[in-house]
């Protein structure tokens, strides 16, 4: 009798936990089955990709031994940045992360943020359209090269990029950055001298690997080799399922809009939630 009761009780408990887990999973759109062995063109990056490997930082752990020592100028700028993430994090209300007030993220942070990104490819141009902040970045593959120096008036948050193929790796060089952007969410600075080299390799149908090196002699004493990041190809049916769940829009495919706007809504969030959370 006792063992039967216990069995019943345990069964009920397990069912309850299982039912809860099932309910929770019901709300998420399941990942489509991976298809790494499907045929693919290694020089075709078309599609919607999402980061599935690596951290949101240049280094896996901020300050680890892959992080280069800084120049005095770089260190001073680093010390003046108060990020909302990482070992130096402060309450956002007392920080100065540009994205905290919805200023642009800049190129490297857009690349590092784990949100879907659509790649649109033509013979002369690859465009990355980021859902996060709904911005784009163009990589010219028409043979042009970057100048050694940029007129400061032309510097911009997402820089200028030119790419070329080395075997089946797309090598992208970028420069001409606005130094108000941060390299990553952990508050590492960049300067107007920063140059970024990205190497994209589609290693199978489902996966692009990204190796990135930052060179900035004004800020860092040696080139900074980033942690390897990877992207997963999001199958069309999975994107369609996301839209159906998000908006009840059937059969839709495309990049998302995760815009931090209008500004007064962000101000409202900061003044009504983040400021009181910090006791301000």
């Amino acid at each position, binding site marked *: 009798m006792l063992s039967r009761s216990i069995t019943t009780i345990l069964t009920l*408990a397990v069912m*309850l*936990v299982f039912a809860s887990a099932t309910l929770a999973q019901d*709300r*998420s759109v399941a990942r489509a089955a991976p298809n790494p062995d499907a045929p693919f063109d290694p020089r075709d990056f078309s599609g919607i990709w999402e980061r599935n490997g690596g951290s949101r930082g240049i280094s896996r752990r901020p300050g680890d031994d892959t992080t280069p020592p800084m120049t005095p100028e770089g260190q001073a700028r680093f010390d003046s940045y108060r990020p909302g993430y990482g070992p130096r*994090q402060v309450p956002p209300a007392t920080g100065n992360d540009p994205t905290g007030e919805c200023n642009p993220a800049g190129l490297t942070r857009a690349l590092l943020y784990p949100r879907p990104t659509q790649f649109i490819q033509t013979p002369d141009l690859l465009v990355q359209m980021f859902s996060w902040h709904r911005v784009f970045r163009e990589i010219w593959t028409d043979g042009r090269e970057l100048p050694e120096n940029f007129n400061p008036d032309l510097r911009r948050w997402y820089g200028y990029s030119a790419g070329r193929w080395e075997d089946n790796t797309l090598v992208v060089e970028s420069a001409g950055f606005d130094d108000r952007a941060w390299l990553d969410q952990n508050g590492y600075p960049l300067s107007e001298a920063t140059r970024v080299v990205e190497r994209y390799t589609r290693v199978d149908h489902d996966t692009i690997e990204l190796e990135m090196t930052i060179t900035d002699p004004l800020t860092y004493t040696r080139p900074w080799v980033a942690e390897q990041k990877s992207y997963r190809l999001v199958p069309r049916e999975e994107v369609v399922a996301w839209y159906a769940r998000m908006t009840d829009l059937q059969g839709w495919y495309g990049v998302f809009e995760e815009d931090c706007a209008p500004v007064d809504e962000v101000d409202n969030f900061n003044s009504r*939630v983040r400021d009181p*959370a910090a006791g301000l």
Partner: protein
Amino acid sequence: MKHRTITLLAVLLAVSTGSLVVSVPVFAHHGTSISYDMEKRVSVTGIVTQWRLTNPHAQLFWDVTDEDGNVVHWSGEISAPFHLSKAGWSRNSIRPGDEVTVILSPSRAGTPTGVMAEVQLPDGRTMERDDGRER
């Protein structure tokens, strides 16, 4: 015997449901563990005044009235709209006047604000902070 069985059942159910609350993963986000005491979980029930499914994080505002009629205005933040909407939540999922119970980690500053782990809605559904994320 029957009494013992019921007690056992009650304990198991309590443990099972309790584990659902405490097993919600703590996600590292913007200053979250600095602004809020992630070791604490409190339950706050009140009447919604506003629900904002906006970037960078969705926000809920609700009022709690004590026996003497004093009103405390609570606020809370939860995940990015991208994740919540991917889980089917919308701008109309919570409406002013709804009575909700919010499980939250309160601000370290001691103010009536927190990062919300879950919002229990009048229709029996529960919005969770990890909704829409792959598990």
